[in-house]
């Protein structure tokens, strides 16, 4: 029975301290990662749809106009 109390005490102590340690390490890890390795903004994927074609055409037209105006 005494052994049981010992195991209980040691067991809960170890479980708690191990998880507290993980919490601390996690916090450090997260702050380091967030500071030095921030996630790159993932560019929004362009859909190959009608809208894109229109946008491309508009861009092309604008470029041509700009070119012809400048010249």
């Amino acid at each position: 029975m005494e052994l049981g109390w010992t195991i209980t005490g040691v067991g809960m102590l170890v479980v708690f301290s191990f998880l507290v340690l993980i919490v601390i390490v996690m916090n450090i890890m997260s702050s380091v990662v967030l500071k030095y390795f921030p996630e790159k903004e993932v560019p929004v994927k362009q859909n190959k749809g009608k809208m894109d074609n229109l946008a491309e055409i508009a861009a092309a037209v604008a470029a041509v106009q700009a070119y012809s105006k400048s010249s």
Partner: protein
Amino acid sequence: MGNLSESLIELWHTTGIYGFLQPGMEGQIGGWGNFVMIMVGFLLLFLAINKGFEPLLLVPIGIGAILSNIPYAGIADHLSFTFHHIDAVNHIYTLESMSGGFIGMFYDFGVSSGLFPLIIFMGVGAMTDFGPLLANPKTLLLGAAAQFGIFIALLGTLALELIPGFSFVDGTPVESILNVAGSIGIIGGADGPTSIYVTSRLAPHYLGAIAVAAYSYMALVPVIQPPIMKALTSKKERLIKMEQLRHVTKTEKIIFPMTVLFLCILLLPSATPLLGALMFGNLAKECGVVDRLSHTMENALMNIVTIMLGLSVGSKMQAEKFLNLTTLGILALGLIAFSVGTTAGVLLAKLMNKLSKKHPINPLIGAAGVSAVPMAARVANKVGLDEDHENFLLMHAMGPNVAGVIGSAVAAGVLLALVPIMAG
């Protein structure tokens, strides 16, 4: 004619009816007890199919219980080998034959060896998203508090042993009572694979009863937990809304499994089989370059092992081992362990809520600290929704829930390291 009637009588002696009518013997064959256990098997199937109770577990377990109690079929017979002696001087033997029932072989290769629980853990790792935990690391503590049940059940076992006439170690001379107590306690971890792993290491004689208890209570989480959760919290606390979790980057998710594993290597190597398998699965999922492996782990491999593990666990529901007083003791202690774990989780969550005014914590998520992923988190979510049907706690409860898996693996590591030394 004589031959014919003799043959018929011989055949009659191999029927199930004849087998059930025999007095129950030590071993596998005969007795009304087998019939009772077959009926229990059908009851499990009914619960699984008609009531939808954990069908993925209970269908294989139910069938396992039915098949292994069939008289004369020997489906759960353990492996036995016969060897041919070829060189008496140098003790060289060759394997002549190998026999055993098919479920008995599953059991020997996967459960006794401790192999299946580890494979399941890989699958669990590949399915688990530690994101909610990384977003709110302090919920790890809830997963620690809920392990209190393990040690209460351990103490309970030792206390029961003091009652004269009731002993867990009678007839099983191999293990010390501490080994048995540790194995019964681990039921409170609410984690089937961990229970099986620890018991196969500490007290293999009790594997059957403990596996059945652990899996039954996991299926009963939605029944056991809500009354405790409601009794311990006020309506106001149950209504607490938690903040939206922050976004967790992919880098964090990749580093996390390796960090936990590394800490474990440094401090608690006895927990590394379990945590190593878990973190391997999780790394495979998060790293993004071995999707084929992680898909296999969480689907095909996990399903295959679940089938074999379920049948093996069911096969331990054998009459002569199951219908006795110590099994009832184990079931009672398992229930206590489970309830104490839930209580401890909720109470710590209440305390944490009192201490952190800025970031409120709904105490209901504390109950999810007893692993049982994802059932316990769903229960916390459901109890929360009962009060306020717009308060979704699921993601918040997943944090303590997966912390519970780590917590019970750590507790298992402590038991595996301490008990054999203390039992001397």
